[in-house]
């Protein structure tokens, strides 16, 4: 909640943007995590770059931990909630052709109307969901 967190967030965001643009500059691909993951699992031809991207993504926190940037110790939601949430995220990102990375970062940067709509809708739905869970139920 401190302004120093905002600076750290912005700097981390710049790294995220750098990772995404590296994939566009060198591989010519949109850095959509849901699309990359789903295609890595369902399409075996020419997916080596997808697996490499996922290995980098999953291994990165092990390296940042050396500099004191660690993964969370506590996950707020219960196991059943996480199971339902995972299923919704998996199905929703496929039907909706993307998630926070593909629509939110790459799509908005490309000035894509589809991505603008998708981002506003999933952000709005998520805000509504959190508001109901925390302040109504």
């Amino acid at each position, binding site marked *: 909640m401190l302004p120093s*967190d905002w600076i750290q967030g912005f700097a981390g965001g710049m*790294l*995220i943007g750098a990772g995404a643009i590296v994939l566009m500059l060198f591989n010519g691909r949109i850095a959509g*995590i849901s699309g990359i993951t789903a295609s890595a699992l369902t399409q075996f031809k020419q997916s080596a770059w997808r697996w490499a991207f996922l290995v980098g993504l999953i291994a990165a926190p092990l390296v940042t931990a050396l500099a004191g940037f660690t993964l969370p110790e506590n996950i707020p939601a219960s196991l059943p909630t996480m199971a339902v949430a995972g*299923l919704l995220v998996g199905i929703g990102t*496929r039907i909706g052709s993307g998630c926070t990375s593909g629509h939110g970062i790459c799509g908005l940067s490309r000035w894509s109307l589809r991505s603008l709509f998708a981002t506003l*809708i999933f952000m709005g739905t998520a805000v509504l969901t959190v508001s109901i869970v925390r302040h109504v139920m």
Partner: protein
Amino acid sequence: MRFILTALLAGFLFGAGLTISMMTDPARVLGFLDIFGAWDPTLAFVMAGALAIYMPIYQFYIKPRGRTIFNEPCQLPEKKQVDQPLITGAILFGLGWGLSGICPGPGLANLSGGQPAIYVFILTMLLGMIGATMYQKK
């Protein structure tokens, strides 16, 4: 081989950025989504940082040429119209994101943390992705 190394680097930078920006922490993400509670604006700064890098390089370098640094064609989405699947999918995704505070990138980046809740999320997410992909191909 070249594609594999650059993809590995891209994934690494992306994962490092997620961890440093604290977006791997679902409590921070839920704090951003909770606009009627103790609102935590950090995620907005993360998005701003990512767009500050991606947007100008895309708009000034990639968009006019449509090709990579190696002069190979970029693979960009061809669909332009907002359709029903886009809306339905975004609503389902928003529901799951709001319930958990986790979207696909941070979920995967959390895998080395050893949290059972993350394993459960990733397992059902992958099942959902595979199921939806198979259904769409029918």
